[in-house]
Each structure stands twice: as C-alpha cells, then as structure tokens.
C-alpha cells in the first residue's frame, strides 16, 4: 500500500488569471521625429537592457486629440531593442483603432486614466512638522559640538569628554556619553536625554544643569539612563 495518495495527473490545459510584470511604455508624444530621436538616445548606451520583456503602451497622458503614431514602426523599433509590445492601454478613438489595426490589443479602453503627474507641492496648508531629527554616526571628539536646531538629535557613536551635544528637543546617545549634553536648549522643559552609558561631564535640560564632579550615582553611572526635568525644575536621573 502506498504511503501517500498518488497526485491526480494534471490536465493538459488550465486557465487561471495572472498578473505578470512587464514594461510600461508611456507615450507623451506621438510625433514620429521626437519618438525616433528619444528612442535612439535612450537605448544608445544599453541597447539590450530589456532581454525580450513584454511591454504595453500607456496612452493615458496623450492629449485626447493626438494623432495616432505609426504603431507598426514603433513596435518594430522596440522589438529590435529587445522589448515586445503587445497591447495599448487607456487609448480611445482613432488611437485605439489604429493600434487594433496594427495588431495590438486594446486594453481597458474605458478604464480609468493613469494617475496624473504628482501635483507640484502647493504652499497652502503645510503640515506643521517639527524640525527633522538630526543623526550623527561618527564619534564626537573633544572640542566638537553639534546642535540640532528645533528638533531632536540621535548620536550613534561615543561622545568624548569635552564634546558637546545640544538640541532644542531631546538627545539620544546610543553609545558612551562622556561629554556634555544640553537638551531643550530653547527652554523646552519636556525635553529628555537618553543614553546607553552615562558618564557625562554635564547634563542640562532647559537650562537646568547638573555636573558630575562628585562620585556619580552608582545606580546609573556607566549604565543606560534617562535624564528629565521634574516638576520643581530638578534634574532627575533614572536607570533605564
């Protein structure tokens, strides 16, 4: 007795829907000379970049009254460059008729037009985003200073003694913080400082500062910590 059931033999032919990847050839013009010039320059450097891929002409951007291009010529030109156009989409009227005559499939003639070019950003109602976060990947050496105006700063390398990190927002240091860190430089009392290794010379939030001249608190020294401002304008340092 066989352990598994024998699979049923596959039928000789099956029909299923599919979506295959192909190339869209977006036509912005149907003028023969313009098309010819652009085809030549486009493929000059890489004549066989497309190794026989299927392609569809996208006509949605053409003006409604555009004269049909010489479809047969266009197909021949593209085939000689390794592209195989077989259909047009979003074509109507004369354009579609000429394409059908040239042996091209006419797809969703009444379908929705392709998305128009993204509109240029208007200056009405800009999103009131905060200043972007500033990222620092390199170690901050003694004497170096970085300032994140209006936002937060993320430092991914060590901040050496004598270096200064300043931000109007919060400060994140994912490495030893051995220099100075000044968060909320323009008075934001909700700003905080985070580090994975607290060994700072000085920390400050909204102008309230603390130095570490005396032996630091052993609960947080050289450990991950958060520094924030408590109600009574006092620096609070907590282990993370």
């Amino acid at each position, binding site marked *: 007795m066989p352990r598994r059931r024998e699979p049923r033999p596959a039928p000789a032919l099956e029909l299923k829907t599919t979506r295959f990847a192909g190339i869209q050839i977006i036509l912005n013009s149907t003028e023969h000379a313009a098309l010819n010039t652009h085809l030549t320059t486009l493929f000059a450097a890489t004549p066989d970049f497309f190794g026989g891929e299927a392609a569809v002409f996208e006509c949605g951007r053409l003006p409604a009254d555009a004269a049909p291009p010489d479809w047969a010529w266009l197909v021949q030109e593209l085939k000689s460059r390794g592209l195989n156009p077989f259909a047009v989409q979003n074509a109507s009227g004369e354009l579609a008729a000429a394409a059908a005559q040239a042996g091209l499939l006419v797809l969703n003639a009444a379908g929705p037009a392709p998305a128009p070019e993204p509109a240029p950003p208007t200056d009405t109602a800009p999103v009131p985003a905060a200043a972007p976060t500033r990222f620092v990947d390199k170690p901050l050496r003694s*004497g*170096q200073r970085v300032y994140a105006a209006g936002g937060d700063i993320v430092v991914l390398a060590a901040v050496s003694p004598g270096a200064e990190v300043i931000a109007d927002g919060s400060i994140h240091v994912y490495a030893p913080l051995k220099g100075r860190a000044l968060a909320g430089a323009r008075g934001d009392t909700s700003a905080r400082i985070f580090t994975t290794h607290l060994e700072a010379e000085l920390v400050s939030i909204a102008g309230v500062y603390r130095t570490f001249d005396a032996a630091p608190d052993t609960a947080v020294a050289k450990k991950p910590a958060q520094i924030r401002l408590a109600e009574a304008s006092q620096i609070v340092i907590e282990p993370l």
Partner: protein
Amino acid sequence: MTTIITVTSGKGGVGKTTTSASIASGLALRGFKTAVLDFDVGLRNLDLIMGCERRVVYDFVNVIQGDANLHQALIKDKHADNLFVLPASQTRDKDALTSEGVEKVLKELEHQGFDYVVCDSPAGIEHGAVIALTFADEAIVVTNPEVSSVRDSDRILGIIQSKSRRAIEGREPVKEHLLVTRYDPKRAHEGEMLTYTDIQELLRIPLLGVIPESEVVLQASNQGIPAIHQKGTPVADAYQDAIGRFLGEEHPLRFVEYEKPGLLKRLLGGK
C-alpha cells in the same frame, strides 16, 4: 602613488618627532622610498633626531617660497638609503607654511616617486598642526598613557575628521592609527598610568602599537640616530612591529605585560 602619513598628537612632548623619525626610517629600511617632513617651523627638532642638523642648507620654507628647489633641500639620511629629510626653518614662523605651498611640495614628492611621506606635526591645534594633517591619507596619533594626552588626541582626531582634505572633499576618511608611547607596564599594572586598553577604549581607533618607556629613546635622540636603529632594544622592536602592522602584517603586542621579577633576579639586583 604616494601615501602621506601625518604623525600628530595635539599634546607636546609625547614622542611625535621620535615616532616620525623611527617610522620613516623603518619604512625606508624595508625598501620604500620615504621622505620625512618637519612641519614644526620655528622649533625644528627633526633634523637633530635624524642627526643631520649640520647638513641643513635649505629648508621647507625655502622650497615653498621658491628660494631653493626640493632636490637641493632634501637631505639624504646617513642610516637608511631610501630616506630623505626635509627640515623645518628655524627662523620663520608657522604662517610661512601655506596650504598651496605644502600641496606643491607634496605633489613634487609624488612626482619624484616617493612611496611614503611622513609629516611630523607640531604640537597644538593651530595652523602648523592643521596644515600638517590637511593632506594626510593616514594619521598616526601618538598618545601617552595619561589623561591629558588622551584628551588632546581626541581633540586632534576631531580636527582630522573636519579639516583634512579627505574630509572636506567627502572622500574616504583619513585612516587613523593609535600609537601609545612612553608606556610603562609596571606603572600601568599598578594603576599609576592608564593601560593601553583604557586608551584604546577612550579613543576607539585601531591600535598600531605600544612603545615602552626607555632611556634608549633619550640616548638615541642625543646621538642623532633614530631609536629604531638601536637593534635588540624593546623600543626598536616595538617600532618594527608597529611598522609591520601599518603595512598589514600581524604581530602580537610585546612589552605590555608586567612580569614580577623572580626571587633570583631580585637577589642578583636585576631591574
């Protein structure tokens, strides 16, 4: 292709010139055509340590100002065939070193087929030190096992990252090497000095070598023979190892562990 190596430290008296002389000599002894340039205009020392002070006719500033050509100013070293010294001027100040002038001299050295150009930087972080590191491809940061030296090295690393040509032009950054000098394993062991691992942890750049503290260095500089020529001494061996590592060889660190003298050695009065 000429590689420009700047020997720098920020702090003075840590052994930049000793290191420049020994590294340049070591590279030359290995067959590389090498020039060592003294950027410490006004306080020239390199020619003393190289033992060529009596043969100085023209200097770096003369070449920059066009009073002499490079060929006239380069002094051939007595101890190594492929080594040439370009001394600093004693009578000018550091402002005489212009960026264009230095670049011209370095181009000329490249044209003459030099493999390595070692730039001996002055102490400090002012014009002279900045111009010495401006054109660097690699930097050897000389650091003593003490906190102030480490801090100054950190500062100079920051300057390398911001003011070198490579940084300004956004090319591959200057390759940084840490060289710890005047290292005393006994004092480091007893906690009187930073250990080399402490220093490396603070500066976070690859360690090129550790040169032990030794009276050989002072004797060598008084004689005008770079310390690397004092064969068989720990200092010379440590410099040789450092050069090997610079060229991509692997050498275990030597002269960094403190061994307690045995009873017999103590009885015999060994050090």
